[in-house]
C-alpha cells in the first residue's frame, strides 16, 4: 500500500497548487503537519495555500504542528472510492478510535475544510 500511496502523495502539491478552488480555500493557511501511515510519516507543508513538496520519513527531529496517525489498513479504507462507515472522514476515524490526531489542532481547525479536502484527494486512487 505504501508503494502505491507514496507517489500519489508526492504529486499532491502539484494537484493542489493547480486547483484554483483549493488555492482559494487555503489562501490563509500556513502550517505543516504529519500524515502517518503505520510507521511511516509523511510531512506536509503549506505556505499561504501553496503546498511544498511532501517528504517521506523517517525523519530525525522533524518538527510539525499536528499529526494524523492511523494504521495502513485504516488509510486504505479512508482512501477507498466509497469509504465504509467509520472511515469516511478523519473525525469518523478518531470518533471510532481508528485514528489519532495529536499535537496542536488549532492550525487544523483554522483551515479545516482546506486540509480535509487535501487529505482526501487520493480517494479512489489507492487500491
Amino acid at each position, binding site marked *: 500500500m505504501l508503494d502505491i500511496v507514496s507517489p500519489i502523495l508526492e504529486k499532491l502539491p502539484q494537484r493542489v497548487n493547480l486547483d484554483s478552488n483549493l488555492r482559494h480555500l487555503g489562501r490563509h493557511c500556513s502550517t505543516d503537519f504529519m500524515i502517518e501511515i503505520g510507521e511511516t510519516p509523511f510531512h506536509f507543508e503549506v505556505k499561504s495555500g501553496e503546498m511544498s513538496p511532501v517528504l517521506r520519513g523517517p525523519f530525525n527531529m522533524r518538527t510539525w504542528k499536528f499529526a494524523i496517525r492511523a494504521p495502513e489498513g485504516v488509510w486504505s479504507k479512508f482512501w477507498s472510492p*466509497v*469509504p465504509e*462507515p*467509520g472511515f*469516511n*472522514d*478523519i*473525525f*469518523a476515524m*478518531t*470518533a*471510532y478510535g481508528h485514528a489519532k490526531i495529536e499535537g496542536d*489542532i*488549532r492550525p487544523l*481547525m*483554522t483551515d*479545516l*475544510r482546506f486540509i*480535509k479536502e487535501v487529505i482526501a484527494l487520493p480517494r479512489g486512487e489507492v487500491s
Partner: protein
Amino acid sequence: MPATEAITGRYTTIDLEGRPHRIYFEEAGQGIPLVCLHTAGSHSSQWRHIMNDSAITDHFRVMAFDLPWHGKSDPPEGWQNEQYALTSDGYVAAIMGFVAHFDLDDAVIIGCSMGGRVVIRLAIEHQKKLRAVIGLEASDHPSPWYDDSWLDLPEFARGDFCAALVSGLAAPTSPENFRWETLWHYYQGGPDVFKGDMHFYRTDSEFSGRSGEIDTSECQVFLMTGEYDYSCQPHNTQRTAERIPGAEAIIMKGMGHFPMSENPQAFREYLLPVLDRVRA
C-alpha cells in the same frame, strides 16, 4: 417539483420563558400536525423535501420553525449583551410553546440530532399531548465525539468551520448537491450559535435515566439513525430504544447524520412506513 413550491413561510411572535420571540416557520399540507426540529446550528430549510412530498402533506400538516437565533428567527431583544446557550428547559419551552401557540392537538414531533435528543424529553414529560415522536440520529444521552477543549476555539464562531466540522457526518453515498446544501445551512449560522447549541447537545441533555418512563401506548417512539453517523452512532440509538419499552430503532443504510436534507429520496423510503404507522 413545481418551480413555485407549496411551502409557505410566515412569522409569529411567541412568548418563550417570559420574553417575546419573533419566530419564523414554514408550513405545508393538512392533517395530523407534524412539527419538524432542525439540527444544531442549522435552520428549517433542512425539511424542504418533507414539505414538498405530497405522500406526506396529503396526510400531515407539516410545520418547521427556526429556533430563536437560527435561520430567520430573531434572537430576543437584548441579545447583544448575552451569550447564547441552548438549555434543555429553553428548548422544550420553545417547542411546546410553538405547539400551544398553534393549538396543535395530538401532534407528532420529528427532530434530528439535538432535535432527536430533545424529543426523548418531550415524550417523557408531554406524552399525553403528543401522538408520536420520531428522533432522527437520536439517543437519550450525550456521547461527544470530540474533546471539550475544542469548544473554546474561536473557530466555532465561523460558519465555514462549523460546516467543515460536520461535513463528514453526511454520508459519502448521499447526493453531492444535497450534501453541500446541508452544509450551506451551517455556513449561514450566526457566530457562536452552533457552539451555543452544543450546550444542550453535549452537557444539558442526559435523559437516559428517565427515558424508560415513556409510555409508548400514549406516545409512539421511533428512532432512526444513519449508519454513517459518528456523532450519534447506531449503537447509541439501539441502546436508547432498549431503554424505552415499545420504542423502535431503525438503522438506515448508506445514510449520515442529516437524512431529511442529505438524501431525501432514500430517507422517504424509511420515513413513509413510519408515518403510516403513526397515522394508523
